[in-house]
């Protein structure tokens, strides 16, 4: 396990794609020290910015102790291993991640898990906008994996999402699941306006009744078997899933009929079938 401690104050944004288990794998501490990152518009060595210490055998588990909220692209494209951030993290954390696990004990910036393909990201604090989204110009956002946010998230969560699961325990901003083409977003807190705008396919599960766009039409009230298996499967992430969520009734709103209209917002009604 490698422990990274910031040794300077981050006065400018830092881009540190090199902080990834895939890059660290098989390297000695000396080799890690010479990895390059961008300090503003200047290239610096990892050792110029972080104290690097090998705590235990192996380099595929990275623990960052301290606030790295100005450090971007940590865990980008990682496919294995583990990154634990004992503070807040910056933008693009876990971007295009394919596997492994990232845990953040603080908050995270925009574009968390953008265009992610696999693995697990768990944030104990808040996340800003565009969690699991697609970058501007991309046709597809998140394509797999799981993101769990234990507090609130900003706007455009899961924009352009195609596969995978995002679970938000707190509030969400506007345009949740906009332009989705698949995947599932589970919302335990309140959802902002315009959820599912332009979605073709995909599922938004809301445990609090949202204000829906007029382009979502009520289809029926039922207990989807899929919800039962899906929520029971999510229990392993210690989500606050109650028996009533599993056995309860859901209003199914189909939409966005302004787009393909094969998506759905399932709004929990409570009660048993």
């Amino acid at each position, binding site marked *: 396990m490698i422990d990274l401690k910031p040794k300077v104050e981050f006065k400018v944004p830092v881009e540190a794609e090199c902080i990834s288990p895939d890059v660290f794998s098989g390297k000695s501490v000396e080799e890690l020290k010479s990895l390059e990152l961008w300090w503003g518009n200047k290239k610096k060595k990892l050792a110029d910015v972080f104290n690097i210490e090998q705590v235990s055998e192996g380099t595929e588990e990275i623990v960052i102790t301290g606030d790295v909220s100005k450090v971007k692209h940590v865990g980008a494209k990682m496919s294995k291993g583990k990154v634990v951030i004992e503070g807040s993290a910056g933008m693009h954390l876990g971007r295009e991640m394919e596997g492994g696990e990232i845990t953040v004990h603080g908050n995270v910036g925009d574009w968390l898990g953008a265009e992610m393909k696999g693995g697990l990201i768990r944030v104990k604090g808040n996340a800003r906008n565009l969690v699991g989204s697609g970058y501007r110009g991309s046709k597809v956002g998140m394509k797999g994996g799981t993101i769990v946010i234990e507090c609130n998230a900003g706007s455009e969560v899961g924009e352009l999402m195609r*596969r995978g699961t995002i679970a938000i325990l707190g509030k969400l901003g506007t345009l949740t699941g906009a332009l989705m083409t698949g995947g599932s977003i589970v919302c335990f807190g309140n959802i902002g306006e315009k959820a599912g705008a332009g979605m073709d*396919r995909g599922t938004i599960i809301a445990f609090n009744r949202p204000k829906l766009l007029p382009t979502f039409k009520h289809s029926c009230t039922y207990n989807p*078997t899929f919800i*039962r298996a899906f929520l029971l*499967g999510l229990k392993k992430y210690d989500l606050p899933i109650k028996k009533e969520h599993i056995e309860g009734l859901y209003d199914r709103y189909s939409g966005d009929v302004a787009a393909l209209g094969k998506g759905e917002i399932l709004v929990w009604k409570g009660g048993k079938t």
Partner: protein
Amino acid sequence: MEIEDTFAEAFDMVAGRLLITAKNKKWVLHAANTTTGFATSVIACGAEVGIENLVRAKETPDGRPGVNILILAMSEKTLEDQLMRRVGQCIMTCPTTACFNNLEEGEKEINIGGKLRFFGDGYQIAKRIDGRRFWRIPVMEGEFLVEEKFKIRKAVGGGNFLILGRDADCVLEAAEKAVKATKGVRNVITPFPGGVVRSGSQVGSKYKFMRASTNISYCPTLRSVVKSKIPKGVNSVLEIVINGLDEESVGKATKVGIEEACSVDGIKLISAGNYGGKLGKHLFYLHKLFEGGR
């Protein structure tokens, strides 16, 4: 009571295990009984299917009561065809059901939900749960949830033993007890009605168009007119056929079945059906099953 020094001859088959869940046990059994219907023998049914065991709600993926079903066929192609027919016609049509693959390890996977999804006419929805892909097919009652792929593996079919006794009543009682005992063994089914066969067959017939015909050697009414294997004093014979995922399970079920059958008064002989070792490669020698004591 004697156990004849002979062997049961079983053969290779391919098998899958379905887990059917539903709102309650009543509907689980409706689906299971329909799915396992007309599935006693590959001679004419296409597949041999049976209920393996009931599954408690807390052990199923959707938290509802369930039942495990084993389905066996002679080839992968036939198994796929039979699965499609039975999942589509017997499980999807049954209110409240869902259908999951419940074979953890298999040599291959066959696509069932991924084909059945077309019934959704374009409104079907794919969902991935814990790395497994499911299809939600809209139906009049709500939705049918079915797993995309089902694992299949080599299996053993045609394990058997014969119960020969004084009269039809005591032989039936022994057969019922034997079948009940096999229910305690995992990975096996007894696909015939109530687990019992009354019309055991022999390979071929005097009629060229018949693949199989009645097992004349064990028909009590023919004892005096054919080369019979029925001892004097025996007036009825029933057969228990046991299919399973592996040889060990079939052997275990055969042993416990015979033990229970022997406990009934009036049973004269336990035997087994074989074809001289020419048909199948799995030979269950009855005496060997009891080596180490009964």
